[in-house]
């Protein structure tokens, strides 16, 4: 079952913050976040496995709510290099063989 991402697109000025949300109608086993730049393959950012978990990667962090049905990606003090399309990927069980992606959020950071 495909997760739902919002917003579909965001335009920021350098230094501004953004939040991207990913939600599911049922509890998830894990949530992945990826970034894809134009003409390139998606690149892994982070994975969350536990309810209530928060993870950070420089100025990009993510949370996974207690019920494990919703995750958010936080981009703080955005840089030009953050531009791209962000995807959340979800797994519904621990079989690890059905990573399904949301529709993506296009992020553009302007000078």
């Amino acid at each position: 079952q495909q997760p739902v991402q919002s917003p579909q697109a965001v335009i920021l000025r350098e230094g501004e913050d953004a939040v991207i949300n990913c939600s599911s109608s049922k509890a998830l086993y894990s949530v992945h976040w990826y970034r894809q730049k134009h003409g390139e393959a998606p690149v892994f950012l982070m994975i969350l496995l536990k309810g209530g978990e928060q993870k950070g990667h420089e100025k990009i962090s993510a949370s996974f709510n207690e019920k494990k049905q919703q995750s958010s990606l936080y981009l703080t003090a955005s840089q030009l290099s953050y531009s791209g399309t962000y995807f959340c990927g979800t797994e519904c069980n621990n079989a690890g063989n059905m990573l399904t992606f949301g529709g993506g959020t296009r992020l553009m950071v302007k000078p």
Partner: protein
Amino acid sequence: DTAVSQTPKYLVTQMGNDKSIKCEQNLGHDTMYWYKQDSKKFLKIMFSYNNKELIINETVPNRFSPKSPDKAHLNLHINSLELGDSAVYFCASSHTNTEAFFGQGTRLTVV
């Protein structure tokens, strides 16, 4: 060393033809995937395969078939190509419930 490699990178072919895209991973991963990314950038899972199980997205036409000669390879065969098959196809691999690594993508154009 390329972790997940796909060939060819570009493929232009006529309607009705049969074609294959090859994928190899040298990461020792146990799960491999095929995704289709259309012009709207939606990443749709087509197949996942590990050494135990093939999972097929039921929306994928049976003209598409994965072939895995061994654990490091998952090739995609497409019969009777149609205009709507034009897209970028990504191969990916992962260990169970860990980050997925993507190949560079194969841009398929059906004319």
